[in-house]
């Protein structure tokens, strides 16, 4: 065996360029007992960077609840797997593509969607839905429009072509995202419970096969970039963006599902960040095996690629598989039919070493387990975010009337209709979309029914900034509530934790607070975390994004006949408010938008009340009593009522604020654990009685009907006009230049 080439020599500068800290490099030296080759340095830098190793977050992620009778596979695989009965499982995960999308919005977002879809079909699931959660800078910032247009076009461009319906998500704006936008993409698939595929290789001497598109010099250092704080030299790092090919991915999907069906696959891993390196190491390490790769066999797009480049390339639409013995020819025939590359690039060994060969030389020979297990793990110092004072109505001066404030809020960047965005996504393809974007949660029928999945993404960064713990709880609670509002039983969540630089104790404090909050809420609501992703270093010139732990929630509707929507259905129905209203204005949309003040403690989340109120509402839906349901979130009670009115194109006559409550606080406060429910007039009393008997605060607050929202002490609000304002803010913003 030829010796590992040692040119160039590994200097401290080279080590630093690879993002390794001196002590991390020293640890690596001790592990291998000699100076590494440049390829080995590349491999370890990919494995040990934040993105792949989760070195700053791992200790905290371990605290999240991940188990439950419904959970088939929790975090650790390409995606989480949850049982939905009848031999079927839902497979889902969310992932960020923040940095690439800032640099090249179309391709960055497109490849983000491609990556997460791959995670899902790698597990043997056919993708049935996609969602996304987006955050942009201030709408007055010069780059915001183009970033928004590019990201949305990219998400649509990939998902529409691939053929998955994009059914939901969220869009927000805040100046703290001026230099770091967020693009979080979620994919959801369906698989048979006994046909789930995993990454762990088994068996010695089996063929490792490379599938999909050819390898180019795409995104080399990409994984490193995704973890490095942006400086003014972002432009320099530009060529690291990859171009997506949704057409190739669609073929890859069909080919993968076909060879899985044919029984050819023992283990499978997609090539995502740090491509061949991460996928090969994970396959071997998870299976307690070694991996021997022969890079001469790797299909390359460009001439003269070095082993270093091949190992670190992030070219898209590629997979690595361990093939069942004797099945190579059958698998290859299937891939050729779909016009994809297929090459045997290595084999499994019993050495537990990761060996990479090229042109007769050994380019790398590393202990495979240690590459993963011995990755640095930090318990970074943190300081808790200081508590903010509680803001009461007396602290707030408002000149607008309640009606005027509603009109302003409903047409604000945060709360306006996002139709301009989601109409660029094909939300109907596959023919199973029961509830489209625009409701509380998307509803997607499972095969031919009667079951359906409910899907949502949620987070309120304003709250997380004000109080990470309560904010983390709230993100989970809101997802749970949105699923409940469409009649679903919440099953499990995926999360995408977007934060600034964890080496700063204040940022780490935000991270820790949010994770603790998420953990507490998931525990209390029986809503385990089954997959997720962490994106740190979202900072530019020292300014971090708002802490943004996006939660993707999945729920199950046993019978589509029992699904619920938020639009007012008939006039003369009673409008009921479930849950307690104290008029909490701190950190509210009202305070931010109308008063231009981002202050105060956010509304606390009473998890017991969440559970109790949600279960009550779900029963009202299942018993066929509720005719419309909407949760109360951003913007408070009146915004939620307006949303129901606009969707149903019907007004309501509303009672005034209860005695002792400030009207602004009543109409726009953001107390949690609340729902609006309509029931036929005659049933209101009985529902309120039942609520009271269960210790639930509930009240009749109005009656549906007419074309206007009638407030007792204010001018009437014409629903159609409100809808017009709500619908036109974003199109006008995007059209105006």
């Amino acid at each position: 065996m030829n010796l590992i080439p040692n040119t160039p020599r590994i200097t401290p500068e080279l080590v630093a360029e690879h993002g390794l800290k001196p002590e991390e490099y020293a640890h690596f030296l001790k592990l291998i007992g000699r100076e590494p080759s440049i390829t080995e340095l590349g491999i370890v830098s990919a494995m040990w960077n934040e993105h792949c190793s989760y070195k700053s977050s791992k200790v905290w992620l371990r605290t999240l609840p991940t188990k439950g009778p419904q959970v088939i596979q929790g975090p650790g695989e390409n995606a989480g797997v949850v049982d939905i009965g009848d031999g079927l499982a839902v497979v889902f995960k969310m992932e960020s593509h923040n940095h690439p999308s800032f640099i090249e919005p179309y391709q960055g977002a497109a490849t983000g969607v491609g990556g997460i879809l791959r995670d899902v079909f790698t597990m043997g699931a056919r993708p049935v839905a996609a969602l996304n959660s987006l955050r942009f800078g201030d709408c007055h910032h010069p780059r915001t429009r183009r970033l928004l247009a590019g990201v949305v076009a990219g998400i649509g461009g990939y998902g529409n072509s691939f053929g998955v319906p994009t059914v939901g998500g969220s869009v927000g704006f805040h100046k703290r995202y001026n230099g770091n936008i967020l693009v979080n993409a979620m994919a959801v698939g369906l698989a048979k419970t006994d046909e789930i595929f995993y990454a762990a290789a088994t068996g010695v001497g089996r063929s490792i096969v490379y599938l999909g598109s050819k390898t180019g010099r795409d995104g080399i250092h990409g994984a490193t970039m995704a973890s490095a704080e942006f400086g003014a030299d972002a432009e320099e790092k530009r060529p690291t963006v990859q171009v997506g090919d949704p057409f190739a991915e669609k073929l890859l999907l069909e080919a993968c599902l076909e060879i899985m069906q044919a029984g050819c696959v023992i283990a499978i891993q997609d090539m995502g960040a740090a491509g061949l390196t991460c996928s090969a190491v994970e396959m071997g390490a998870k299976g307690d095996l070694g991996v021997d790769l022969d890079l001469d066999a790797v299909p390359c797009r460009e001439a003269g690629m070095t082993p270093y480049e091949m190992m670190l390339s992030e070219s898209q639409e590629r997979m690595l598989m361990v093939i069942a013995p004797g099945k190579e020819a059958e698998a290859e025939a299937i891939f050729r039919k779909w016009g994809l590359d297929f090459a045997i690039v290595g084999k499994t060994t019993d050495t537990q070493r990761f060996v990479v060969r090229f042109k007769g030389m050994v380019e790398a020979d590393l202990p495979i387990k240690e590459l993963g297990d011995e990755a640095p793990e930090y318990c970074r110092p943190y300081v808790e975010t200081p508590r903010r004072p509680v803001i009461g109505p007396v602290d707030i001066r408002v000149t607008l009337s309640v009606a005027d404030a509603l009109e302003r809020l409903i047409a604000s960047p945060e709360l306006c209709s996002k139709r301009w965005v989601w109409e660029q996504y094909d939300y109907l393809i596959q023919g199973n979309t029961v509830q489209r974007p625009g409701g509380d949660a998307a509803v997607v029928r499972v095969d031919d029914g009667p079951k359906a999945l409910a899907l949502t993404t949620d987070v309120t960064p304003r709250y997380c900034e004000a109080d990470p713990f309560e904010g983390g709880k709230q993100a989970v609670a809101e997802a749970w509530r949105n699923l409940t509002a469409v009649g679903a039983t919440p099953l499990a969540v995926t999360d995408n934790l977007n934060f600034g630089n964890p080496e700063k104790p204040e940022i780490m404090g935000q991270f820790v607070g949010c994770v603790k909050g998420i953990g507490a809420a998931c525990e209390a609501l029986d809503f385990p975390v089954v997959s997720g992703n962490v994106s740190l270093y979202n900072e530019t010139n020292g300014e971090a994004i708002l802490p943004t732990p996006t939660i993707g929630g999945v729920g199950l509707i046993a019978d589509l006949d029992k699904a619920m929507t938020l639009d007012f259905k008939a006039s003369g129905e009673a409008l009921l408010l479930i849950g307690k209203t104290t008029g909490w204005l701190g950190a509210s949309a009202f305070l931010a938008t109308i008063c231009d003040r981002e202050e105060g403690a956010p509304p606390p989340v009473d998890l017991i009340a969440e559970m109790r109120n949600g279960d009550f509402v779900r029963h009202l839906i299942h018993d066929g009593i509720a005719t419309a349901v909407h949760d109360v979130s951003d913007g408070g009670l009146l915004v939620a009522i307006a949303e129901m009115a606009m969707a149903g194109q019907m007004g309501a006559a509303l009672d005034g604020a209860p005695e002792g409550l400030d009207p602004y606080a009543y109409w726009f406060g953001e107390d949690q654990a609340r729902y609006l429910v309509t029931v036929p007039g005659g049933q209101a009393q009985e529902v309120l009685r039942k609520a009271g008997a269960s210790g639930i605060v509930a009240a009749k607050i109005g009656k549906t009907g007419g074309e206007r929202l009638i407030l007792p002490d204010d001018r009437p609000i014409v629903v159609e006009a409100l809808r017009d304002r709500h619908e036109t803010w974003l199109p006008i913003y995007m059209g105006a230049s």
Partner: protein
Amino acid sequence: MKARVIVTLKSAVLDPQGKAIEGALRSLGVAGVESVRQGKVFDVELIGNDRASAEAALKDACEKLLANTVIETYKVEFAD
């Protein structure tokens, strides 16, 4: 004054379109094509006749809008 701007993908960047076209030409029996890369062309009509200022304006246009220099390069040509 007329000018033409040609925007092409940098050579290391994947060109899925070109790849698909290559395959299609091959199966249509068009002979002798080894590779295809697709780009964009912009035919621009400019006010005035000052070549230097036109060149500056087009360079500006490319940097700001017509090309994404992360993945593309551009070239300005004049008809003359």
